[in-house]
Structures are given as structure tokens and as C-alpha cells.
């Protein structure tokens, strides 16, 4: 059993990383961007400009 010290360390680190990622809610993919918005958006949603606006025309299917 002790001959696999490297494997034990590697696997334990892997599972620890997995546990931490699950705990903190990490993701492998980058699906979003973050920035600050003015408080007025709540009252005037139309004034908000998202970097994703207009993508629908490019991303759509058929």
C-alpha cells in the first residue's frame, strides 16, 4: 500500500479539490460575465445593456 504514496497523494488532492469545488460552487465552463450595475435597473429594466444582447440572431438554430 505504501508503495503508492504518489498515487495516494495525487488521488487525495484530487478528491479534496473536487470537494472544495463542489463546496464553493465552481464551474468548468465560463458562461457568464460580471460587472456592476446602477440601482435604477430595477425600476427601468429596459435601460440595462447586457453584452449578450443581440446574440440571438447569430446563435439561433435553423
Amino acid at each position, binding site marked *: *500500500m505504501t*508503495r*503508492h504514496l*504518489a*498515487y*495516494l497523494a*495525487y*488521488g487525495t488532492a*484530487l*478528491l479534496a479539490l*473536487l*470537494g472544495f*469545488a*463542489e*463546496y*464553493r*460552487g*465552481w*464551474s*468548468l465552463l465560463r*458562461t*457568464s*460575465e*460580471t*460587472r*456592476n*450595475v*446602477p*440601482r435604477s*435597473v*430595477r425600476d427601468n*429594466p*429596459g435601460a*440595462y445593456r*447586457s*453584452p*449578450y*444582447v443581440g*446574440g*440571438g440572431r447569430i*446563435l*439561433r*438554430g*435553423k
Partner: protein
Amino acid sequence: MVAAPPVAVRALRCPSCGAAIEQRGFDHTRSVACASCFAVLDAADPSLRVLTRFAGHLRVRPQIPLGTRGQVGGAPYEAIGFMQRSIAVDGERYAWREYLLFNPYRGFLYLTEYDGHWNLVRTVRALPERVHQGGRLAARYGGDTFRHFQTAVAGTDFVLGEFPWEVRAEDRAEVRDFIAPPRVLSAESTDDETAWSLGEYVTGAWVWKTFELPGRPPAPRGVYANQPSPFAAARRSVWQVFMLFLIALVAMAAVRYADAPAQVLRESRQLAPGQLDPYVTESFTLGGRTSNLEVRVGSDVSNSWFYLVFALVDEGSGRAVDFAREVSYYEGVEGGERWTEGSRTDRVRIPSVPPGRYYLRVAPELAPDAVRPVSYTLTLRRDVPSGGFYAVALLLLLVPPVWVTARAAAFESTRWMESDYGSATGNAAASDGEDDD
């Protein structure tokens, strides 16, 4: 009772060239080779008649000089004889060397060497049993099963020193080797009899240390028949460690998937051409620690698409996370077969959202040629497990045991390439050097 005097060493003179010959094997020696003219003499004959000579000019220098002594199994042995033998396989000659080790009380041992691989061999007096294992010839001895490795006819090419039998240049013996690494069982057959011997693989380092030889032993080349596999024991135990990790991984997943994630928001909306104003959802609280947020869109879209531009806004800090999702679904019948493309639902996970009070700002878009309104439902769930992580962890955990297993198999494949069976490995699990520790 008068004590007998010590058995004396005889000093001989070669009748062929007159050189002095020292006899180290006492009266056990039947043949002795003159170190100067290489004639092999009959030691039992008072006039030392010449028994045989080896044709050709092959001269081989033994790596263990004759007369060297070493401790083997707690007793001193002296190298008194040396021979080079060879077999012919597929037109190629393979030569190896044998050293005869002698102790006047315990008898004879042999040390064989081929391509830097050494074996310590002793005569076996019990009879091995012939059996079959895995469709192949094998021999059972001492509780172990030895698999047949090679059969070949061996001839002697060159000798030095003494031997307890009559050596003749035209000697031929059929040699059959059976292996159970690190041991090898060999049968040497002549017309008169079959002699069995058991060899144990030893390293060049052991030989050099035992006989206190200068310099370094020659590096071994390739994999030898009964060379123990350095991966054999590791191959089993590494999978045992993997099983431990697998159990831990399954336990982690069980804990994680045990409780259903909390649903923090569920809202339904309808999209129709002209009714596409951006809006904000109700506020909702994300409690607990920083974790992810799953946004699920379920709809009844059919042969069309819609696009939702989201901003997850933190009421307290004013920070927003922007993301957008497209939902499209198409179906039809072509040539009698139904086809579909896309999906009516979409799921995305927003990572590392700190706790706080949030709302979602949504800006929908609809396909310009949409004819029917689309209804959709937003479902938000907090702290959702990421199944992909577990799959990735499993794959990464598999890498070391798979690698060790592959290397062990490659080692065995190389071993069996030298055998009569070419590159067939047969039952690999039974052929490698497994030691239970």
C-alpha cells in the same frame, strides 16, 4: 582413529602443450581444459589423454575468473568451470555462458548469464509433473506451476576449467525451459537421461557483490525469460488503492446528491411577437455559503427559437452577472422517420454566487418568424451538484492504475517475445512475477 589427511589438490601438466594445470574440483573432475592450448583432457586418465578440442578460434573470457570464491547461501563456492553454449532459433545463434561453482561438501551450483541476466541454478532431484495450463505445456514442481517457454537444442562452443562429466565438442542436449518468474525449471535431455534443474533470477549486482568482482556488471538488455516483473505486485495493489478512492468518490457523491437543492424561484411567462419587453423577476434570497445557482428554462417552443438575456443582480452590492441562453427545438418527419433537433429545456449553472438578496433581469427575444406564442418557466435552484466533476475525477483517478497495468502488460509482452510463442502473451496474469507481500 587416525584422522585422514586433507584431500590434496592435484597439480597437472598438459600433455599437449606442457602448461601447468591446477585442479580445483578434487576427484570429482572428469574433464579439465588447458588454459593455454584449450584442449579438453580426461582427468580420470593417468596420462590425461585429450578428450576433445573445440574447432574454431572462439575464445571467451569469463567475467568471474576461475578460482574466485563467493559466499552463496552461507557457504563458500569456487568458480571452477566455464562454458559458452548456444542454441539456434530461426537461423540465429543465441549464446549464453555458464559458470560451474563448487564446494567440496555441498557439491555444485551453476551461474548462467545471458545479455546481462543472471540465474543461480541447482540440480533438482525430485521429478516435476507434466501438466497443461491454459492450453499450454507446463511443469509442476514444489507447489508452483512453471509455464513452458522454450525448447531448443544446445551445443557447447567453448570451455575453460573443470567439469564433473566428460565434455565433448559434439555434445548436444535438448533444453526445455519452463518459467515461473523469478524461477525457471529446465530439463536437459540426452539419449541417456533427463536432468532437471531449478534456476533463480539474480542481478548482476548480486553476482559482483558475491564474488567481489571489480567494476560494474554489464547492463541487462531486454526482458529475460524468468526475470521478475517490477510491476507485478504494483499492478494489483494500485487497483486496490483505486477502489479506496472509488469508495470515497461514491461516498462524496452520495452525500452531495442526498438532499435536493433548494428551489429559490419559479416564474412563468409568455412570449409573443410584440410582447418582448425586458423585465425583472421577484427578489429572492440566496442563503448559506457561496455556491452555485442553477437557472433552468422549460418551454413549449416548437420549430422555433427564443433567446433570453439574463442579468443576476445583487441588490446589496449592485453587482450583476451577465449571461444569455438560447432555447430552440425543431422536429419533423422525413422519409417516414421522426427527427428532432435541439431541446425545449435549458440548464445553466452560475458559479460561486455569494449569499445575498438577488433578482433576475430578463430581456427576451423571439424568432422573427414565430407564429405562435411561447410559454416558458424559469426555475432557480441553489447549490446544485456538478455531475461532470465526478466523472472527471473518476477518469483522472483511473490514469495511474491504467498506466501501471499497461506497463506491466508491455513488460510481459516483451518477455514472451523471446519465447517459442512469439509475441503471444497467453494468460498474462499467471506469467508475471507476482510476489505476495
